[in-house]
């Protein structure tokens, strides 16, 4: 038997678009060896609150018969700090729901990343300019401090920053 043939393959695609002045649509699509699924979240602006959710889920041996009921629980949840705990609690973490929960989280992360991109496009090209830009970003949003290797103590980006101030 050939050892070059894949045993499993997966594509996950996340896309975010602005529907109108007040709404973002985030869609996560999954196609892998066993699963074909998609989840769509509508996020209201400027609150970043989920105002709609829909989806479909097909899997070789797992069913999610309560899909629509689960997604109906999501409107009202705010996309931002603390959302993962709320999403896990509302959608559920039983085996057959984990993929669905993950896809909802991905949609929400997509909304955050799309807004992050709006800020990052303003970053200068030069090394010096970047250091200054990202250092200011940490100062303006101190929660970024020590959030990752780039913003950890010892990094040039957090030199002189005291998170307690």
């Amino acid at each position, binding site marked *: 038997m050939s050892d070059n043939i894949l045993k499993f393959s997966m594509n996950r695609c996340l896309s975010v678009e602005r529907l109108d002045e007040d709404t973002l649509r985030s869609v996560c699509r999954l196609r892998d060896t066993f699963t074909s699924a998609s989840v769509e979240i509508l996020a209201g602006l400027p609150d970043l609150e989920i105002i709609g959710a829909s989806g479909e889920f097909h899997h070789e041996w797992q069913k999610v018969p309560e899909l629509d009921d689960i997604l109906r629980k999501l409107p009202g949840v705010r996309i931002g700090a603390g959302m993962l705990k709320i999403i896990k609690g509302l959608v559920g973490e039983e085996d057959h729901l984990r993929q669905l929960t993950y896809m909802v989280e991905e949609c929400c992360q997509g909304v955050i990343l799309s807004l992050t991109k709006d800020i990052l496009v303003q970053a200068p090209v030069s090394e010096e300019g970047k*250091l200054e830009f990202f250092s200011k970003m940490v100062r303006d949003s101190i929660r970024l401090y020590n959030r990752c290797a780039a913003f950890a103590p010892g990094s040039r980006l957090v030199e002189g920053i005291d998170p307690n101030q």
Partner: protein
Amino acid sequence: MLKFARNKVVSAARKDRDTLSIHGILDDDIYGLEVDLCVGIKDLQILSIAGKWNRHTTPECPSAIPYLQEVRGFHIDEEIGSKLNKIVGRKGCRHFANILNECCYAAAEAAKVVRWEDAKAARPDLSFEGFLKEEAAGGAQVGDSWPPSDQAGNAMPSPPPPHVAVPRDERHGSNPFPARPEPSSNGFVIDLHVHTFPASPCSSASADSLIEEARRIGLNGICLTDHNHVWTPEKVEELRQRHGFPIFRGNEITTDQGDMLVFGLERDVRGIIKLQDLRREVLAAGGFLIVAHPFRGFLTFSGEQLGLTPEKAARRPLFQFVDAVEVLNGKVTAKENGFASSVAASLGLPATGGSDAHEVSEVGTYATRFFGEIRTEAELMRALKSKEYVPVAFRRETGVPARENRPAEVQAS
């Protein structure tokens, strides 16, 4: 037009008899990165890992790469997601943690296929579904569950009828404080929001150490508000007696609309409850409900970037269901506290303060000043409903050194 796109591709092949080879690519508008893993088929152990950036944002992002090596030896099981987030995500980069999560999913699924193929060698007519049923009947296999969970127990029990909380002091008519701290001329100051270990696993402070620190810095009382945890009256009474210090009971309950500080509700709420349902229960119990840190993380994007004003924010439905707003919270930025204060003022809702302490040095950072002495839970409830109190920056006001710890994580992940 697309505002943002992220594509992830993961493939799993059998490298040799015992090993899977996993390749993962993450490519989006901001980041581009790749990882390669070798995973043992039998025990789903990560044997080796390599990763590289194709595109990144800051000049310091490359320093995340060495942290990938810390996942060598990990087993792909239900805990792998939280381990990856803590080790790779927090110390290195959360986008590497993200693609590694996908690779672990792929490894677990590929291992099923490989085990089926091996079983088919002896039984050519064995279907994949039949094989899975046999495996399930034989007990759960390593790596059968994905995406991994970092929280145990998610069943949400149906709520029993609300229980009306009768404060212990009213039932027994006793004075709970052998040694009474006197209210100062500056009122009676209570930290209404503290977390203790082990009731709140995210806290590093025992109730005893928090109480001792609260007394040391001159607070008049503290309220234990552990996450979805109900302190028994007996246990709190024991703490009161032992320390001779006013200690009150509350509960920080996570709802679909965020965290709420609840007073006077005895029910142990598990899982995520709808705010409207919680409100009904609190009203039935004669309790009090404060929205905790209502704009935590809001201003990262919603403020200047998206134009959220206090006037717009005040229209958020959740404010219809709360009795007061926590406008001084020790875990959010001054800007977010200021925003909450503006919203509370525009709605005419009372404002409270609490440290949200998870470490001893944080207790009393913020607190609530009442204008009369409060000795019992019944008195606290009456005081909260009287609306006669103000939030205070207690440590700063009294000159007690500010907390030494950095702000705790309050990001989405």
